[in-house]
């Protein structure tokens, strides 16, 4: 029996196990890419529309989020499309790959499935090989769907080479991070730790590309996440990133095989250390238990959001100085007008980032609330529930911690932007004032609260539908984040709480909206609470 014996059978088994998640990812991503491409000529068809968006895309704020791309000569619809979509789709594809790869390796090992498989006549490296093959096939299929979709959409300026370069380029980027997930799965000794490690590396790579994009786009070559920007599919098609991704991926895969071969099943280089013999005096109830279990995740989220905020803040002095791009403006308008204009640019930039921060800050909160149901199905709640603890206490320890975490993360993120941004300016008065900052905070918090309250409602009343929380958040995020670039109709933005409040601090704060959204959040939580007290818990 070779070391890869029964690789084919295991791969088929993987596809059977993951068929629903793979199918969901493929359909959603391919449909997203194809439908945007299909609609794109309507959005940016004429030369004047292209010229208008071209200067927007060149502004540092957009560069920080969508990547730096260079335009030469006459810019086509397809080029604008590549600029807006490549990095965004790349990010989603990385998330998909990290989820699939850790799930297929360390996840199975944690569940004891790998042990069962390995006890049969399969090669020692076959389970890892099957996971790698699964990633290759999924990414390859998705890349092909992209290319076919783009060819069918036939945007003005699109080329056959460019269409295929986008498909293959995104596939290899996704695959690269998937293989990274396979490697971290060998290093860590359980799946949560492997996922955390992979996301840390992914985050570093993303931050590196953001900072280099704003300052020295050439240096972006050092970040694998930045390679996808270098494809330039429709103006100067460049296949180097594809080869780079494949080569790096191959190295990572070989490292993973090397480690897999030398370690015991269930073990990892980063081991779980023994802990306390007795509980500390602080660990005494459901809230401290939740904090003890989730503190690493909570602290990591809040820190990550603050770091992202600070990183975005560093570009304030580049964006907030119109004189850099228009040196003659001061003579024409006078310095007061110039400062006012700088201030407007920063307000608009901050308002745009507030959307991103609010969406990101909502994620750990939703996770904490949904965990109440995950714990229920995993049987962890059974030990707690047999104690003199009411359901009210249990529910509100999760919900309370979720609201606090998301609120703090958002304030921290926006604070990071504003504090770092203002500090980087030569004229502090151009920056965001304290009042504007707090209005920015107050404007987004009800949105975060409504999203969290909705998750509470689902967990309390219809726990099977809890995944809808993520879909709704994603819809809200795409609606407002991509909405203006894709010129989505207003009602799409109005579908979720993310679109109910005017963009603050660019616009004035609307306290009426603030009040009724907060009221709605409270109402949803109360209904969820009543439901949670009445329903059967679904223990195994």
């Amino acid at each position, binding site marked *: 029996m070779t070391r890869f014996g029964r690789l084919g059978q295991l791969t088929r088994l993987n596809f059977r196990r993951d068929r629903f998640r793979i199918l969901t990812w493929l359909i959603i991503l391919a449909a997203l890419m194809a439908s945007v491409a299909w609609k794109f000529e309507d959005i940016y068809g004429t030369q004047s529309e292209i010229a208008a968006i071209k200067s927007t895309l060149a502004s540092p704020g957009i560069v920080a989020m969508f990547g730096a791309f260079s335009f030469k000569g006459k810019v086509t619809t397809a080029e604008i499309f590549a600029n807006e979509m490549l990095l965004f789709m790349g990010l989603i594809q990385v998330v998909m790959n990290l989820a699939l790869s850790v799930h297929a390796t360390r996840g199975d090992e944690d569940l004891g499935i790998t042990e069962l498989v390995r006890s049969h006549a399969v090669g020692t490296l076959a389970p890892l090989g099957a996971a790698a093959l699964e990633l290759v096939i999924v990414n390859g299929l998705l890349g092909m769907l992209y290319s076919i979709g783009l060819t069918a959409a036939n945007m003005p300026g699109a080329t056959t080479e460019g269409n295929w370069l986008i498909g293959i380029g995104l596939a290899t980027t996704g695959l690269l991070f998937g293989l990274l997930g396979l490697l971290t799965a060998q290093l860590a000794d*359980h799946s949560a730790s492997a996922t955390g490690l992979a996301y840390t590396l992914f985050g570093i790579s993303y931050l590196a590309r953001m900072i280099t994009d704003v300052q020295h786009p050439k240096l972006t070559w050092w970040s694998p996440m930045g390679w996808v920007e270098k494809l330039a599919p429709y103006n100067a098609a460049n296949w180097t990133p594809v080869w780079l991704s494949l080569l790096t991926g191959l190295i990572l895969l070989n490292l993973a095989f090397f480690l897999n071969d030398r370690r015991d099943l269930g073990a990892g280089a980063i081991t*779980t250390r*023994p*802990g*306390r*013999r*007795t*509980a*500390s005096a602080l*660990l*005494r*109830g*459901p809230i401290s*238990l939740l904090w*003890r*279990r989730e503190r690493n995740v909570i602290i990591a989220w809040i820190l990550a959001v603050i770091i992202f905020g600070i990183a975005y803040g560093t570009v304030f002095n580049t964006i907030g100085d119109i004189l850099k791009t228009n040196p003659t403006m001061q003579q024409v308008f006078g310095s007061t007008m110039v400062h006012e204009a700088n201030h407007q640019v920063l307000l608009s930039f901050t308002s745009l980032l507030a959307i991103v921060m609010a969406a990101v800050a909502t994620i750990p909160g939703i996770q904490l609330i949904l965990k109440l149901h995950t714990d229920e199905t*995993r*049987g*962890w709640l*059974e*030990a*707690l*529930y*047999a*104690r*003199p*603890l*009411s359901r009210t206490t249990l529910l509100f320890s999760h919900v309370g911690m979720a609201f606090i975490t998301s609120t703090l993360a958002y304030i921290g993120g926006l604070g990071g932007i504003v504090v770092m941004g203002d500090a980087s300016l030569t004229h502090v008065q151009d920056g965001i004032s304290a009042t504007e900052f707090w209005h920015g905070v107050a404007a987004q918090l009800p949105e975060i609260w409504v999203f969290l309250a909705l998750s509470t409602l689902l967990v309390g009343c219809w726990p099977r539908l809890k995944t809808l929380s993520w879909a709704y958040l994603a819809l809200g995020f795409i609606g407002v984040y991509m909405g203006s670039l894709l010129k989505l109709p207003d009602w799409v933005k109005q579908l979720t709480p993310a679109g109910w409040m005017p963009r603050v601090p660019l616009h004035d704060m609307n306290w009426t909206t603030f009040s009724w959204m907060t009221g709605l959040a409270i109402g949803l939580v109360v209904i969820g609470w009543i439901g949670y007290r*009445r329903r*059967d*818990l679904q*223990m*195994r």
Partner: protein
Amino acid sequence: MTINPVLEINHLQKKFGHLQALKDITFTVQPGEVFGFIGPNGAGKSTTIRILLGIIRASGGHAQIFGQDVWSDSVAIHQRLAYVPGDVYLWPNLTGGEIIDLLLKLNGSAHTVKTDDLIQRFGLDPTKKARTYSKGNRQKVALIAAFSQDADFYIFDEPTSGLDPLNERIFQEAVLDLKQHGKAVLLSSHILSEVERMCDRIGIIREGQIIETGSLAEMRHLTRTMVTVTLGDNFDVTDLTGVHEVTAGQHPNEWQFAVEDKELSQVMTTLAQHQVEALQSTPPTLEDLFMHYYTGKE
């Protein structure tokens, strides 16, 4: 003076959609009593226990612990109750020691000398993260937390399925100790020797119904004795009342059959008239008893 039962269940029912999981459950558990709750897999043991814990709500009937309703007064009841589930799931990134202490604190009690003693007797390493524990070790964590708690009613749902015989014995000693202190215990188990050794009374559940309650001795009377007899003449035993599964033996005039206990003396009287040359009788084993009830066969 009548003593109030610790647990009182009356015609308890539970429906999951169209599935009638519990049809009719009625039994009581008295202070100082170990009650064995047994039945085949899927009969409704765990569903009953979950209703008792207030995790799921009964669709009919009543259940009271300490005279309080199990759904609406669950928090007050849990103050004086200890529970060990059959499949113990623990928070993976906490150590066993931390979990034991936390569970105790949640009941307002604390880590005592007794806790340390139990940790040592069960041979648990409390510094390891729960993620790394085997099934047996996870059960030990739950058992140690339950035994170090000073409760009045203990519920164990197949608590020893992952334990080795040594630890199983420690468990049994601990339960008998609870009994001596006048505590009530509800023990759901498949291990017959455990049930035989510890339980004062037994309730057998099948397909969502309690089909028998009583002491082991009482139940034995409801079953049959196996008899092997060699007679001096060619009398045919097949037609006797209360005799079943008759087979002819290897020798002439030798018979093997099962007799219902209530007909035993009548059958013996009849046989005695036919010159009994040899007679062997075997009381029903526990296995026979359970097979009888579990399969529901005559």
